């Protein structure tokens, strides 16, 4: 299941995660974000145990979004051992997100 992330739990959940973490930066008004979410949900199931996933609402958690320089949504960032290792900006198909994970 995708975790609900925010400015408060981001450090603990994502940066201190023992396995890679895929974060979906989104907002309720963003149409393309609604198309990305089901793809990340699927990846969460397919790669259970290998990665974790979560979504961060940029409207409610602007500090984390700003910290990672997110200026366009959807943005999906893959974190590993507390660091950003890959990023996709804008709507992408499932294949492209799958590649992020298989490149790990």
């Amino acid at each position, binding site marked *: 299941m995708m975790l609900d992330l925010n400015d408060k739990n981001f450090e603990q959940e994502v940066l201190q995660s023992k396995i890679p973490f895929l974060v979906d930066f989104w*907002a309720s*008004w*963003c*149409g*393309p*974000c*609604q*198309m990305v979410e*089901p*793809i990340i949900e699927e990846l969460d199931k397919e790669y259970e145990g290998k990665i974790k996933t979560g979504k961060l609402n*940029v*409207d409610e958690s602007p500090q984390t979004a700003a910290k990672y*320089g*997110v*200026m*366009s*949504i*959807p*943005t999906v960032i893959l974190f590993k051992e507390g660091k950003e290792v890959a*990023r996709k*900006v*804008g*709507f992408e*198909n*499932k*294949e492209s997100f799958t590649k992020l994970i298989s490149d790990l």
Partner: protein
Amino acid sequence: MIYDLIIIGTGPAGLTASLYASRYQISHLLIGSQLGGTMAWASMVENYPGFDSITGADLAQKMIEQVKKLGAEIKNTGIIEIKRKEPNFEIKTENDEIIEAKTLILATGTQRQKLNIPGESEYLGKGVSYCATCDATFFKEKIVAVVGGSNAAVMSALHLAALAQKVYLIYRRRPLRADPIWVERIQKESKIEIIYETNVTEIFGDNKVMSGIKLDKPYQNNQELKVDGIFIEIGGKPGTELVNSLRVKLDEKGYLKVKSDMSTNIPGVFAAGDVANASGELQQIITAASEGALAANSVYRYLKKG
């Protein structure tokens, strides 16, 4: 199993085609990678009957729910190949699944057109955006530019003006080609400055974030504009790569050529929405929906004929 119909594309054309196909009891699969299609990008839709004003994402959601209620089978995945498998057609999905059907409705819409100028891909997500609805929030009290002269461009400029300090609307021609009702609204908005007959030639910055753009001719004696963001709204190009193998005829602008019943030159292959040339320059949700309905009706008659 062999479906009677596969509808490729999940924007308003594909969704409406499915709605009608369900009512005609045509066994069909609706498949596409972007549920809602281009419609989901619109910040406000004010010209779809029955809705005074609704966001594109909400309207898309309503259409998807309606289609699902009628029992349509939807696959949210991309397609990598379409080919003939006499007498039927065969598609291959991104997951390497192969699906066969007697007829096809191509409703693949358009892909966002890029400016193809230096800095555009480099600063994507660092000031460059293709969705004002999504990203306006990152530009509160900032200076931004919108490129384009269509309804979508004007709507984006208005949407941004609500939050930004200043908005430049840069259009390569004159006058704007947006509907008069939008033009009137934009002229009343004091935060928006329109720059006509000008092209953007470069986007620059400090690698981390963009800081300005270059123009092909000076505006107020300056060939560079300091902007924190640029929104590119110059329309789309038809998504026809997949159908090359079927030899569907295109018009001179690259759109799928259809007759008034949405049939193409290939028997059993129909097209609808922005990818088809049925409604000329008018690429609207309502024209896409209408073409989707016509295409489904034509499929119904085609299948009945046997």
